[in-house]
């Protein structure tokens, strides 16, 4: 079992000294590493990272996101994915390579205001993200409720190998689609949605605490009913 060292840090705080092969959310001056975020610093063997507690969503390829169609041209839809970059869904990727603006109408597939689950096909520093809706579970969202959480808390909502999300799904009898951009789609019966929402709210506020899984289980099983946080 590798030794894990954890500490809370703020921007500019020294996280570690020496050589590390893998780092994230730190910057280096000579052999010293300083945090760039408010978060939890973690040193495991040769990797040193700061797990941020707050921050915007920066797209990455292959991320699953939940977005809203905000505009369209003759060849593409513009999708708001809760990020500083507006993303595009090409008509070609939906209608096929022989798409013709004269024959196919974009609004027939997705109208402005529609919610979609999509995957990020391509993104780099020079271009806005490109989306794709081809794949199982992707496409227009017809029913359910969208809950917004901080994008930095998404890993905690999913949990180790999806453990947390499974717990919530089992208790609330709802289906959860967690977008990496911090938007979560919940579908199921109204009581279940309310329960799932309260669990997400708890994770959003107490993601950094150690016994989070237990707290979520207590909330879902109703063992702290009537107890206000």
């Amino acid at each position, binding site marked *: 079992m590798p030794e894990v060292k954890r500490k809370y840090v703020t921007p500019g705080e020294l996280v570690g000294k020496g050589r590390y092969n893998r780092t994230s959310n730190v910057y280096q001056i000579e052999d010293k590493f300083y945090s760039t975020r408010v978060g939890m610093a973690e040193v495991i063997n040769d990797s040193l990272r700061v797990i941020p507690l*707050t921050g915007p969503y920066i797209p990455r390829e292959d991320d699953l996101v939940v977005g809203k169609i905000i505009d369209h041209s003759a060849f593409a839809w513009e999708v708001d994915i809760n990020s500083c970059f507006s993303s595009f869904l090409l008509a070609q990727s939906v209608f096929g390579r022989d798409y013709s603006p004269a024959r196919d109408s974009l609004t027939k597939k997705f109208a402005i205001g529609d919610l979609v689950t999509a995957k990020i096909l391509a993104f780099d520093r020079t271009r806005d993200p490109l989306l794709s809706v081809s794949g199982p579970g992707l496409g227009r969202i017809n029913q359910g409720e969208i809950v917004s959480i901080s994008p930095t808390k998404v890993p905690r909502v999913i949990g180790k190998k999806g453990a947390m999300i499974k717990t919530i799904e089992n208790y609330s009898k709802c289906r959860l689609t967690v977008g990496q951009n911090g938007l979560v789609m919940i579908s199921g019966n109204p009581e279940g949605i309310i329960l799932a929402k309260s669990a997400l709210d708890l994770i959003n506020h107490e993601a950094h605490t150690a016994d989070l899984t237990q707290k979520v289980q207590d909330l879902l099983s109703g063992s702290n009913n009537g107890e206000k946080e």
Partner: protein
Amino acid sequence: MSKLLNSKNRRLDGRKLDELRPIKMKVGVIDNANGSAYIEFGRNKVMAAVYGPKDVHPKHMMKTESAILKCRYHMTPFSTGRRKNPAPSRRETEISKIISEALEPAIVMTDYPRTAIHVYVEILQSDGGSRCAGVTAASLALADAGINMRDLTSGCAAGKIDGKVALDLDEVEDMEGDADLPMAILPNLEKVTLLQLDGDFSHKEFIEALKLAKKGCLKVYEMQRNALNDKYFGNEKA
């Protein structure tokens, strides 16, 4: 002549020469902003909010390699004794610019290409030294917004009253005193990002004031860290 200091070198509000005014900080006070902070620096009350990174308007201001930082320092009409015209004044335009320049070295701008970061600093009540309080609040708001930063920016002023170098001047001392030296630093990197001087210092006095202001900035930095820890880690901080 001696009217700002008494015979025991105490100031009008009872402070010693090297004493800061009481400071309060709170992070995350505005839910609608991506990051926010509220500071009380003596009788100064300052609110700062950060929006972004988001897309740039007008588009021609966009930088392909990095973000742009847009700051607005504004005094509310009720922040001063006599009503202040809410239209941006020459002074506010200047302070907006210097706050932006004081914060920019701290932010890893290249992490957010083609975007804009908006910082709004609103002075709710002013009592001298509001630009330093503004920089300090804005830096906290940026950290709260989760924008990659090399360091926090901490601001504090020094000055000269009745011929003696003093820390953190208030409104009266600023108006009646001999000099004012606002300063902002990146405490861990040991870099100065804001230094202005209004008034006269001898070389010796200037060095003394610089050292004193740095000491003040470091105290402010400790409070900034505590404010961030309070919000994010609560009482769990070891």
